[in-house]
């Protein structure tokens, strides 16, 4: 046991206040919250029984995160009550939430980047003025949790060195370390690979078995179906339904979410590849520490086809996009339309890449793709702002022209609200992504680099984005698609390449790709499952599968 005197006392108090028989772990009664005139939550009531996983599903901007922020004490509800374990428990701040046994794992992690895992874990719950005893205790507890829940993280690594999946584990560990028995996870799998997501679900399952209560916010139907016991659907700030998961279907949930039937599969014709647009030979990239992130990549993409790069996040996909997009350096050869590109340039080369017809929808639209404080119209030309079409004369830009161009593009891409002067940060995730996409697609690029096009995007927008990508392909663009969503890779790509540890483990046509075969390649393994895939070229680096 690791807790201090105070948390021990708190624990006993919690024990004394054990949930009365039959009382829900969490009950929200008539919660309402408005931001200005926008009603983010309207009279919302839910009951979550202890030892269950409750899913909350809804499109971006439906009010899921607002509701959870109220439960965690970040926002104050305008009306309504929060009951925890059968008791009316006002939660004015997150301290009160933690005291009530609520732990939250945010979509955007709240970790100190240059602290170690251990330091982040004890942050705010240190035992005294000296750190050493707290750190030692945390180390022991961490080891226990790691073994119990498969939550392996190196306690002495700094956060910035960790992959996103590992950072999320730290967040979960933080909550568990604080004795949380109600865990809220906000879009936890948005940043995870399928394997990591499976791992997370195993963890959640273990937690449920131990009697912990979990609220899972997501917009992925499959996850809801896979892990939850009950599910609530939110739409435009209202709770439209709460059902038992066993008694519903993905189709029904999707309909409740968007209020109309959605197409989950992409309809596309067979690709008709033309001339070679992109040739990459022996491309290698080293990071700041001199570690090789890309180890001799070879690939080609032809006009009119989509090459999907599958793989667990952090195996070199980001570096591939960065070096192709012109803001990382590397060695090797890249040819676009047969013309070689300089890779050694010390400075950012994004502008000349764009002039050569390479467009790039980056993986992280908040960090790279958009300037959140800039207006929509400023973002609509971001990266292309030097284009002569946007200049009024040789001194000043044609702002008025850009605004009207943006208004048209927003209309075409169904960006809501279609107001060019609104700052990017006031759009929902899906609409932000549409702005980026509009900017990159509208110029009919020869090559489009797309990273995680539908991460954190609602179903309606996913469908729209997928359709646009296929349209662009049909117009003869070459598309490099990087995604950790295997479903997305499978439904959009014409050919698939699987990356592992900075190398392409294998590539081939999407039709013959099997789920297990791709899974093996993503883990760097060869073997029968892989060899069984027709038309696939497998790297010698793929280790033969262990026989047992």
């Amino acid at each position, binding site marked *: 046991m690791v807790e201090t005197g105070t948390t021990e006392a708190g624990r006993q108090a919690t024990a004394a206040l054990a949930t009365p028989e039959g009382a829900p772990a969490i009950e929200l009664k008539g919660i309402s919250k408005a931001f*200005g005139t926008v009603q983010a939550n309207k009279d919302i009531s839910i009951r979550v029984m202890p030892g269950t996983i409750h899913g909350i599903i809804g499109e971006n901007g439906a009010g899921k995160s607002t509701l959870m922020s109220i439960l965690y004490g970040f926002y104050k509800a305008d009306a309504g009550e929060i009951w925890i374990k059968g008791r009316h428990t006002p939660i004015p701040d997150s301290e009160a939430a933690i005291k009530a046994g609520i732990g939250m794992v945010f979509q955007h992690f709240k970790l100190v980047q240059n602290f170690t895992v251990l330091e982040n874990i004890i942050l705010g719950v240190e035992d005294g003025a000296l750190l050493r005893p707290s750190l030692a205790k945390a180390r022991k507890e961490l080891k226990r949790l790691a073994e119990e829940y498969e939550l392996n993280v190196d306690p002495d690594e700094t956060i910035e060195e960790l992959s996103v999946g590992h950072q999320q584990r730290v967040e979960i560990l933080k909550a568990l370390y604080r004795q949380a028995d109600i865990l809220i996870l906000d879009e936890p799998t948005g940043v995870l690979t399928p394997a990591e997501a499976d791992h997370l679900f195993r963890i959640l399952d273990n937690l449920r078995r131990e009697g912990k209560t979990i609220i899972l916010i997501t917009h992925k139907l499959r996850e809801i179906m896979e892990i939850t016991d009950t599910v609530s659907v939110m739409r435009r700030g209202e709770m439209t339904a709460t059902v038992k998961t066993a008694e519903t279907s993905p189709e029904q949930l999707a309909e409740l979410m968007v209020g109309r039937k959605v197409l989950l599969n992409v309809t596309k014709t067979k690709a008709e590849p033309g001339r070679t647009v992109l040739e990459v030979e022996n491309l290698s990239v080293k990071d700041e520490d001199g570690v090789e992130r890309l180890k001799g990549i070879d690939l080609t993409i032809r006009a009119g086809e989509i090459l999907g790069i599958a793989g667990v996040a952090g195996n070199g996909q980001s570096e591939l996009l960065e070096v192709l997009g012109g803001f990382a350096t590397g060695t090797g050869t890249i040819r676009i339309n047969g013309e070689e590109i300089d890779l050694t340039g010390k400075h950012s080369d994004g502008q000349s890449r764009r002039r050569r017809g390479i467009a790039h929808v980056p993986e992280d639209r908040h960090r790279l793709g958009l300037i959140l404080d800039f207006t929509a119209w400023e973002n609509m030309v971001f990266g292309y702002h030097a284009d002569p079409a946007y200049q009024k004369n040789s001194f000043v830009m044609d702002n008025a022209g850009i605004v009207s161009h943006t208004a048209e593009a927003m209309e075409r891409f169904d960006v809501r609200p279609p107001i060019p002067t609104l700052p990017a940060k006031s759009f929902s995730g899906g609409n932000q992504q549409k702005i980026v996409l509009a900017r990159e697609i509208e110029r009919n690029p020869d090559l489009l680099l797309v990273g995680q096009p539908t991460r954190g995007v609602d179903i309606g927008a996913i469908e729209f984005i997928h359709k646009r990508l296929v349209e662009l392909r049909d117009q003869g663009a070459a598309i490099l698609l990087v995604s950790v969503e295997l479903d997305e890779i499978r439904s959009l790509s014409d050919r698939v390449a699987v990356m592992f540890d900075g190398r392409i483990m294998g590539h081939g046509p999407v039709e013959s790709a099997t789920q297990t075969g791709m899974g093996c390649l993503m883990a760097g393994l060869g073997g029968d499952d892989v060899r069984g895939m027709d038309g696939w070229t497998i790297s010698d680096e793929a280790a033969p599968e262990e026989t047992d």
Partner: protein
Amino acid sequence: MEKTPKWVDVALIPVLNLLIAFVISGIVVLLIGEDPVKAIKVMVSGALGSPYGWGYTLYYSTNFIFTGLAVAVAYHASQFNIGGEGQATLGGLGVALVLLAVPWPHWTIALVAAMFGGALFGAAWAAIPAWLQAKRGSHIVITTIMFNFIGASVLNYMLVNVLRPPRSMDPATARFPAATHLPTFHDIPLVGQFFSKSVPANVSFFIAILACWLVWILIWRTKLGFEIRAFGRSEPAARYAGISPVKIVMAAMLISGGLAGLMAINNVMGEAHRLVLNSVEGAGFIGIAVALMGRNHPFGVFLAALLFGFLYQGGGELALETTIPRELITVIQALVILFTGAFDNMLRAPIESFFVARANARKEA
């Protein structure tokens, strides 16, 4: 979504903040045993009560506009240029060298050349910290502060050993030729009749206003300004867009240093008519406060510079006419910065929610 009316945001809140700062300043005056009402009277009449007072107020404001703009431009690229003092010092050196080197036939030509010299020297002084930041990652705050001290020493050396006229005991340059003296407000037709001959405010004031307008164009209308703002908001995104960090840091800092250096056309060329030690008198540092209060917008900088010009001149009068020490003006300046900058959200939140609630109530009615 309902928003607060714009006038509340740009006028009401700053004015209320200022009033609070002044009220607290009044309490401080009371505490040191003086009459705050009299203090205000002295300050207002000293700074604004006569053309003479205005002549000084606007002279100081001119300095602060230049240094305030300098800080603002760098700030848009997220570079905190603390080196306005040193850059203005070197700008003075540039102006003096230009004016002493050539027998200029007319002040207009001399002014153009002096502006070039001042801006060039100021920019050069900013270039070294900028380069260190862009290429080596040395923090711009540290290096620009150090360059203030080095700049003061350079000026000292140049005045004592190089520029001091033979047999002069004074560490200062020779006086500039009369043909290079800028017209003061007294010399300007129509306006001139209101100003007595001795006011220091001069045509540089109009150059400063022009600079405000040009900075506005630069930041919000040009490609370079777009890139500066983009880089200032998000360096990773700027790199993604193909904007070179080195280029932006250098460009923003060179413009910033150039603006600070331009100040010398006012204090050196326009007023002192020679270069003396410590000619900048802290205007470089006040520029930081001016930019902060003016929210790094050229128009805001202009208004804030007027206010600080008033405080500077009024404070001088205060020290002359009462027993209130001159240092009190620093206290008042600090309070103004505190309330308009640091404590801004204190008033903003309740006022904004008041106006939003009112707008909603109206809508429902």
